[in-house]
């Protein structure tokens, strides 16, 4: 990763385009570019390491880092997430949110500690159940593998006293990659498979990392069985998940035993699978960069095309006043068609509205169906036991079942939503038939579908062949189905996934009363417990149902705004173009002066566009390299 863009150039490019938008009086484009600028700002890929407790997550992170930087222990597990990033100086900062005394809302407290003291703060040893309340630790390490990455080591799920599963779920949305760590000694368990499923729904790259292949002679068979489990689910996202066998012990041995001959150390590192994982992570980092570059350059090119169209029309009219009217008329026709896109009766609007209505009812039905099954199980369980005594164990079980049902539902909703978005984008393009080129959305998980044809993207549209209006449309193709839209949708779905996990406080309250009233008759306690279960599930259906409706409405709004704004920008560009063509000066001298100005502006815009294209050509194209992120 030696040619990592520093990020500054991209930021500068977008800033330049924003200034141009202001100068050319296009506040609509300026707003859009501001969104882009924010999205481009963070240049590090977030990679989560998740899994059941004691699966060897921290050991794996250490192997990736090439040394024991984080504390591990045979018995005590990690309790606080640790975020590893690159820096020249090793250092650790603990972070927690605190309520500030003046009541000015929550603020963040930072505390620097020496790296050696990390174990006292992030494992069960010094900080059981994370009583200190740290939200996470930020470790800065001078390890090259971390460049362009934020590697998050999470506490595992399923320990004796860890409510960590919820915080793991909270981390998932928006992760650039998720490594699900599992033991190579046995096939994936049901909870592990559920974790993979959720991760695959919200993150573009998920890898099941099997650990400790050095100890298990049968790891190949286990890897095959796991592969089978993933393939049998029938989800494309899960079929794309790779299973990568690794041995942290081998990698650490290779890194730490200084007496090893270099070729032996290399062979060990290769055999450990950790080297492969490093490549994969650098690919994730690269993808994040590519995506940033693509997003920034796409949007800048689109903006340039819109500026240029107006100037070009004006130039043509100035050069040949006789043609001015013809140009104006042509542009006007295109403008009318573009205006039709905003029309409520446009087909994409219909598709969107009907699709969301269908989704709301389907998703609600699915949720009810799932939770009804949970109630049946729970009631059967309650019939056999005294809830007064078992409630403390029963409540977490129920919460887990309900959470699993809800998150599966949300994940399914997310898939359907993405599908709807693609359909709307297609119809948008079809509605603007003749104006807009066809679109491919989301052909790859991170919405990189548009880049499938990078050459077409990079080539400047041929104005002579297509005419002014049409070349504008081709230039705009990136703006109506691209990276930006998919990015927005992912964030929305991620929020919806988080919410169900906040439901459950009521259940804990309910448990108190049940435990306290031991004296009552068993039957009565059982009946009450069942009631409590039903009430809780009702609450969850109400909450989660509202969440998913809200999410879908948000999706609907986002998509509508996105496409409407695109249509508006288009219309505005065309209308400015028509005005420019019409307002040709009669006076020869003034015309010549204006022509020179316009030519100069065009050159400036062309220079900006050229810069964006160069930036893009320089960075992107890792397309020739085979991807390691997709399974066989």
């Amino acid at each position: 990763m030696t040619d990592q863009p520093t990020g500054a150039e991209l930021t500068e490019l977008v800033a330049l385009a924003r200034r141009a938008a202001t100068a050319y009086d296009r506040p609509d484009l300026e707003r859009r570019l501001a969104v882009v600028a924010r999205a481009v700002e963070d240049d590090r890929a977030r990679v989560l390491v998740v899994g059941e407790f004691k699966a060897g997550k921290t050991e794996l992170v250490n192997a990736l880092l090439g040394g024991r930087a984080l504390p591990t222990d045979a018995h005590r597990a990690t309790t606080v997430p640790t975020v590893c990033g690159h820096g020249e100086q090793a250092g650790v900062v603990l972070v927690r949110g605190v309520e500030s005394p003046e009541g000015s809302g929550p603020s963040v407290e930072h505390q620097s500690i020496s790296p050696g003291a990390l174990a006292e703060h992030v494992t069960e040893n010094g900080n059981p159940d994370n009583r200190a309340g740290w939200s996470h630790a930020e470790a800065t390490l001078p390890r090259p593998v971390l460049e362009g990455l934020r590697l998050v080591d999470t506490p595992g799920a399923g320990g004796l006293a860890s409510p960590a599963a919820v915080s793991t779920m909270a981390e998932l949305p928006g992760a650039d990659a998720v490594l699900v760590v599992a033991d190579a000694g046995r096939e994936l368990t049901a909870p592990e498979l559920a974790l993979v499923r959720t991760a695959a729904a919200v993150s573009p790259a998920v890898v099941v990392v099997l650990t400790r292949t050095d100890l298990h002679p049968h790891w190949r068979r286990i890897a095959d069985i796991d592969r089978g489990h993933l393939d049998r689910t029938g989800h494309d996202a899960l079929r794309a998940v790779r299973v990568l066998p690794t041995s942290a012990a081998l990698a650490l041995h290779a890194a730490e035993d200084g007496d090893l001959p270099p070729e032996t150390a290399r062979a060990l590192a290769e055999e450990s699978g950790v080297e492969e994982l490093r490549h994969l992570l650098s690919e994730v980092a690269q993808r994040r960069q590519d995506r940033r570059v693509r997003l920034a350059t796409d949007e800048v090119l689109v903006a340039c095309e819109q500026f240029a169209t107006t100037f070009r029309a004006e130039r043509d009219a100035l050069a040949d006043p006789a043609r001015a009217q013809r140009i104006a008329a042509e542009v006007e026709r295109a403008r009318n068609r573009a205006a039709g896109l905003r029309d409520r009766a446009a087909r994409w609007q219909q598709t969107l509205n009907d699709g969301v209505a269908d989704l709301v009812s389907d998703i609600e039905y699915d949720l009810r169906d799932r939770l009804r099954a949970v109630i049946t199980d729970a009631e059967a369980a309650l019939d056999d036991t005294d809830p007064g005594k078992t409630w403390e164990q029963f409540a977490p079980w129920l919460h887990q079942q309900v959470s699993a049902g809800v998150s599966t539902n949300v994940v399914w909703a997310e898939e359907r939503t993405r599908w709807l978005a693609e359909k709307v984008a297609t119809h948008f393009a079809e509605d603007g038939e003749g104006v807009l080129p066809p679109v491919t959305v989301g052909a790859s998980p991170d919405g990189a579908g548009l880049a499938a044809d990078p050459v077409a993207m990079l080539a400047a549209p041929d104005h002579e062949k297509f005419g002014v209006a049409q070349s504008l449309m081709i230039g705009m193709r990136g703006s109506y189905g691209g990276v930006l839209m998919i990015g927005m949708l992912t964030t929305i779905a991620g929020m919806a996934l988080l919410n169900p996990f906040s439901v459950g406080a009521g259940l804990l309250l309910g448990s108190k009363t049940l435990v306290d009233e031991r004296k009552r008759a068993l039957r009565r306690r059982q009946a009450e417990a069942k009631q409590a279960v039903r009430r809780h599930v009702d609450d969850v259906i109400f909450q989660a149902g509202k969440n998913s409706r809200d999410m879908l409405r948000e999706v609907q709004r986002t998509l509508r705004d996105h496409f409407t704004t695109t249509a508006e920008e288009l219309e505005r560009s065309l209308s400015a173009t028509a005005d420019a063509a019409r307002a040709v000066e009669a006076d020869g001298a003034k015309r010549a002066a204006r022509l020179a100005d316009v030519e100069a502006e065009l050159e400036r815009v062309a220079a900006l566009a050229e810069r964006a294209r160069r930036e893009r050509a320089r960075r992107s194209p890792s397309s020739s390299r085979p991807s390691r992120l997709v399974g066989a």
Partner: protein
Amino acid sequence: MTAPDPSGLVGAARHVVDGALRLYGTGPADPPTAWARAVLHDARARLDEPLRVALAGTLKAGKSTLLNALVGERVAATDAGECTRLVTWYRDAPSAAVVREDVDGRRAAVPFTRDAEGLRIDLGGIGDPGRVGRLLVDWPSRGLAEATLVDTPGLDSIRETNSRRTLSFVTPDDRPSGADAVVYLMRHAHRNDVGFLEAFADLAQGGAGGLGAVGASGTIVVLSRADEVGGGGLDAVTTAGQVAQAYREDPALRPLCQTVVAVDGLLAETARTLRQAEFSALRALARAPRAEVDALLLSADRFTAAEPPAVVAEALASDPDGVRLDEPARRRLMERFGVFGIRSATTVLRRGARTGRGVVDSPSLAEELIRRSGLGELRDTLTSRVLGRRDVHQARSALLAVDLVLGRAPRPDAGPVAAELERLLTGAHAFTEQRLLAALRQGQVTMPEGTAAEAERLLGGDGPGVAERLGLEPGADVRAAALEALDRWRTRAESPLTSRAAAEVARAVVRSCEGALRAREH
């Protein structure tokens, strides 16, 4: 067979069951009575049989492997995938036979063969495996003389029917538990494991007189696959032992079991069934240059590779005994010992060769590996806490059966039997100890500052032996210590400042001390 019955509990329980049988054995056989008769007959028969110990745990925890290690022969088949699908009983018998019992109670002999992997039981011709209730394997073996071992399917299997078979065996709805004691295997204490242990300890229903289905006193937790806990290094099982110690003190696990022991099941099984050829192979490996062998043992893959590094190949080829460690031979060694096992074996063999003492031949290697695998400790624990208390566990199972019958098929004339049952369940000191121990560990009783740990120990929480109860090193003066404890606890029991619950505990501790004194004088 007559079993030792030091507490007289088995005799008393037999008396109660016989009384109940007389009650239910006469009159018309309506369904409830017929059911009661069947349950009582089974309970009566069990009192004269060896103790029934079930091996339970989650998928791939190593139940069948540990069963083989305990028997000392490869009887239960093992595999990398999910293997045991049926509840399978292994009992001592004069001749080998396999019988399948269907859910409707019908029995039929099943053909079987035996190879190096264990018994191959041919269930072909049955059609629907759901019909089969259990398999009964009769096997002549000293390892099964004291206890009938029951292998069970994994508890969190994705194939749910398998898990259900295990649960309905250990904690059935309409019968007393099929097991008198449970050895529960887990890799780490996962929350699911705690859930299953709770079902066995049956804290929920409380059982008759507060005793569980199997009861915490009948449950031993094994941290199986101990070799993996410590990362397969030479000190892996030691590290796992420390983890086991931590679990023993964990408030979530403490009320649910007697104790936690770490065992490397694979190594234990192999050590119990060690062959001379394996010993020779390991010795040849121990003779080869150590650095090279260590490099070979960095991973299972390296060890079983077709072409080992030239240096090792040379060393292996020049073994004085002409042992050839070709690829298939190395593969077999890996299958049988695992990385940790081979590392341990070569280490002790090297030391033995250097010093000429310790591990020098096949039997001494087997013995050392049994010790290192943790099996030795597990067997001691089983002997002292489970097999040695056979009377208590069996009497409890029988009495719970009578309790179940009296509750589900009530009769107006059951008064005397019910009274005697009640007297035993609440009066027998062994049961009182178990009940109070559970109450203490669950925190239901608050003892005066600093006395809870001693009370638990004296009630048998660290083991039922006199020295264990008094916390004495071997050779210490038992009598003086017992008298001293007796004195202290009598004062506590009689003090007006002691709460009622704590006084009850103190009185029980006094009786335990008296019992310890008596046991010493015998």
